[in-house]
């Protein structure tokens, strides 16, 4: 993955660039908006990580210019804490995702993966499966090797989200956003409790350890299941 990092704080930019390199990606950092616009229009990038506040051209204007110029590269917007209303503005300006500073690198990496592979709109599907787990979206049923697992609606949605992104790690905050619609961290263990119930129900139905905890990052379907 080739990532353009437009971030004026050198330390943050370097931390992101190094992290990407360790994952085998290419990161290129630039510290001001004018240069960022230049790079973004001249070269092809897989994802752009864009700080909301940039010297030269600020992040939002830069994003609008990119979209106006027809450049569809996925953009993750970074913003300082305490400006929730910026989020709506950012997404309306054409950002694909939004991350509040300070963030853990693993969170950014998970979101980069998500926007990079998002591709075209989700194909209409009625069945999802992974290993022995089969999900029927019409009947809203989950079977593990044919055995029914009785899930609560939220548990069902949680599993659906993991199955749809089976190759990727879903972070706690991504799950909070997609299932509960919370774009902030409510500082509660709601995801953990649902995950633990979901796991024990899946285990009861025969799919033991189907969901893997990626320490400090989030959850994903265990590949060797």
């Amino acid at each position, binding site marked *: 993955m080739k990532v353009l990092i437009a971030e004026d704080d050198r330390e943050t930019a370097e931390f992101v660039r190094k992290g990407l390199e360790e994952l085998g990606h290419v990161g290129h950092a630039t510290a001001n908006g004018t240069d960022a616009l230049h790079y973004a229009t001249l070269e092809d990038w897989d994802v752009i990580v864009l700080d909301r506040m940039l010297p030269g051209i600020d992040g939002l204007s830069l994003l609008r210019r990119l979209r106006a110029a027809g450049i569809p590269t996925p953009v993750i917007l970074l913003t300082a804490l*305490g400006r929730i*209303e910026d989020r709506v503005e950012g997404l309306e300006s054409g950002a694909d995702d939004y991350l509040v500073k*300070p963030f853990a690198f693993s969170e950014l990496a998970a979101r980069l993966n998500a926007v990079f592979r998002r591709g075209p709109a989700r194909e209409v599907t009625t069945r999802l499966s992974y290993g022995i787990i089969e999900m029927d979206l019409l009947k809203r049923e989950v079977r593990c090797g044919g055995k029914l697992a009785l899930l*609560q609606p939220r548990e069902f949605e949680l599993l659906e989200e993991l199955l749809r992104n089976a190759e990727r790690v879903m972070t706690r905050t991504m799950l909070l956003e997609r299932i509960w619609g919370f*774009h*902030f961290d*409510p500082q509660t263990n709601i995801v953990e409790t*649902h995950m633990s119930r979901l796991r024990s129900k899946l285990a009861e139905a025969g799919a033991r350890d189907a969901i893997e905890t990626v320490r*400090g990052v989030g959850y994903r379907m265990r590949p060797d299941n």
Partner: protein
Amino acid sequence: MVRSAAYRIAIISSLAFAIATCALGLFVYLSAHAALAGQLDDRIREDGNTLLNEYRHEGRLGLFDAIAGRERQNGSNELGYAVFDVKGVRIAGSLITDMPEPGLRNILFRDPEEGPDPARAFTTLLPDGSRLVVAADREPLERIDRQIVTLFGAAFVGVIAIGAIGAVMLGAYLRHRLSAMNVTAEAIMGGDLDQRVPVGPRGDEFDRLASLMNAMLNRIAELLENLRQVSSDVAHDLRTPLARLRNGLENGLRHGLPRDQRDKAIEQAIARSDEVLSLFAALLRLSEIEAGRLQQAFAPVDLARLTREMGESYALALEDGGRRLECQLAETAIVLGDRELLAQALINLLDNAQIHTPPGTRIEMRLETEDSRVVLTVADNGPGVPERDRARLTRRFARVDASRSRPGHGLGLSLVSAIAGIHHGKLSISDNHPGLAVTLNLPEARP
């Protein structure tokens, strides 16, 4: 003096009075003069006409008799008469003057005692070419004019004097009243925050301003105290996780530590720093909510539905912890607000009910609408909170448990209270007999 608003106001108002006095004097002078002069003219014209009739009926001699008769009766201030023949020679009457032109004229006549004197004369041309003159002394008119001028001149001087004295007194009074406030303000700037403006007993505008200033000072002092408290609490709450973080890192750095143990130490250090970050996140979120900017994005939210969803999300987790959640929710309850903030409030209330009660507790969520209010109650039958501690529950970093051994950073209820605040609602905490009941009272939005 120029810099004093009080003096300026008093001087301007007394000047205005003086000008008004002047204008009034001028008006009285002019109108009195005109009225008296008119009266004088009427009198001589009338008498002239009477004499003319005399002449018509009785002839020249009759006229001379009438004039002589009048002059005999006259006192000193009465009218003077003269008849001039065609050549301008006085042939009757005792008025000594040159022959005037016909009509109303100002003339000079010779008073045998006082010399030349101005007078008003009415001259009529008689059919035989001679002229009849009836004249009145202008002296009384001029005397009245002089009196009016003297009177108003004195009044003008008086008004200026009274105005000047008033200005000095009013200025001194205002300065005196304001200086009390100045002294207080200076003392407060000097660091003595306990100073208050003295409030007089009269309840006038100065007293009202003084009470208002005092109320403002009290509020500022309260906020400052709160800030002081919060800063010291933040420092205190940060020290613990930071110290643990430091110790953990120090342990991890020891020589010869197996790799897995070192990894564990690093993981723990990350968890500790997350604690610190989450404390800051909560504080920032609190100040963001209190800043009130989010109100611009408020939209109708069905609080009943949101509560039902949160209830569903929490019910099972609560059951796993050995507690029971019961919901009695109205069908719909629309409030104007931010869905995520309201969800945050519900989460904090449910988390509190879970953290601060023993297993086996029954937790109840009630939502009802009454009188255009939406009332949401989260109650438990746990140990509750003593009444004396309830008031400070919504303060930042407030914890009933002084040892701070229970989880949480003590910001939960202050967050709920702030959320209620920006939704124009109220948070109240009461006794649930037994247990604690926390009630959110929000205005209902008309669909």
